[in-house]
């Protein structure tokens, strides 16, 4: 899990396989990173090619933890099959989703 700060945005690059094992590997670290940042977070999902329901739960948990602190968790770079999962589960209505990292960062600046 690659983490960097771009301006005031915490950008997290999520790993390729977010199955039960993949989620367990990053879940605690991600929660800690996101809650300690308390602000704008962007999950770059361009490397992600599989999400299990536990991955959706992990993202939801982090969204719920940053929103009360005035922050947000937005997503960028969903591969087509991942976008399909977000559409069918309607998780696309929970998150602001952008085509790529640059567009998402521009939206945060605006």
């Amino acid at each position: 899990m690659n983490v960097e700060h771009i301006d005031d945005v915490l950008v997290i690059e999520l790993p390729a396989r977010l199955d039960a094992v993949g989620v367990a590997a990053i879940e605690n670290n991600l929660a800690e990173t996101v809650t300690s940042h308390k602000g704008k977070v962007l999950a770059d999902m361009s490397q992600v090619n599989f999400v299990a329901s536990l991955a959706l739960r992990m993202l939801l948990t982090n969204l719920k933890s940053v929103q009360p602190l005035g922050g947000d968790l937005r997503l960028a770079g969903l591969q087509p099959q991942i976008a399909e999962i977000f559409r069918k589960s309607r998780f696309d209505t929970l998150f602001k989703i952008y085509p790529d990292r640059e567009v998402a960062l521009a939206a945060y600046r605006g």
Partner: protein
Amino acid sequence: MLQDLLRGVPWFAHLDAKILDHMATHLGQRHLEAGEVLFNQGDISYDCFVIIDGVMEVITFVNGTEHRLEVYDAGQMIGEMALIDRSPRSAMVRAVNASYLVVITEADFKILIGSNPELAMNMLRNSTTRVRNTNQRMISDLERKNAELLKAYQQLKAAQAELIRLNRIEQEMAVARQIQESFLPRTLAQPAGWQVGAYSRGAQAVGGDFYDCIELGNGRLGLVVADACGKGVTAALFVALSRSLLRAASLAPWIFQGGMIHDIENILTGALWLVNDYICREHAESNMFITLFYAVLNPSNGALAYVNAGHNPPLQIDDSGQHIHELQEGTLPIGIMASQEFPVQHAHIAPGERLILFTDGITEAMNAAGEPFNDDRLHAVLREGVGQSSHDLVSLVIRQVDAYVAGAPQADDITLMVVSRAA
């Protein structure tokens, strides 16, 4: 020259020159190549040997494996035990490198010790020391083996306790599985002109998927397929909770939802609202959610009223099998947002058409290369099964998914329901 060599051997250092001369002319000699055996364990012979040059090793066999007991080199005597007690050789003796020995027969031995009490005393001392050393080594070996055995016994005891614990968990899981199976409908209603077939299989002992077929009165049929986030015990607990609440709220709406509710759509939305509200209220901190498709079918005219809470949209297929389309997606899954509305959507199943309800365990079933079964393969097998009964089509899909994954471990629970209307 042999006299000089014998003189250099401590055993013979104090012998008279006369006796040494006699020995040098009479004693047998042995030259051994490296690896050559002087005698084998169990051999019967009563000569003993003094190493003039080279290195000899004493080997015994335990369960067919060689163990080196001792190594002797120039000046040392070997094989005297058999000579003294006339018993078979207790071990094998083999040359480590090229060795040169003199052979002392029983008769020579008697002459030697008779002529020189000091030599006899030395030999006794030597033998006693060897026996003492051997005893000490045996005791140390036994102590070491005893410690190893004790350790092995403790490990075995710990492993056995762990096994008992695992067995108990397995038994409990087997019971849990039976209970969970009882959460699936015992029989599937088959209204006139319709066929309903269904199948569910967990990736683990208990699963996070379920289906239901609820007879709602007035001939209406409630059709449910759901998938709790994750799998295993956590998911199974939420299955038990949401299935029970949903069924109870559907079958006794006047208790759970209050008032006299006759409108079937209100039962549908009310049941969803109740389950969602309950889970959001009571279990918010666990962030668990359930995707759930719940439809009420009117078998008399094929009208379908449904709510889709974040579940894979079911597929509707025409009688030719050529046209497959998804029902519309709906709202977020259950358990995410309290007080969420669940608007009812509508579809119509015409004669000859069918509805396929499934969980993503079907389309995301992975082969060994990590590639999913996917929507295209599901569509292909649904086309292939055109004209088959609901029951047979369910079997066909499951068979093809199993053949596709070809023994790779099942990653997710799989559930499938096929509802077919006669042409």
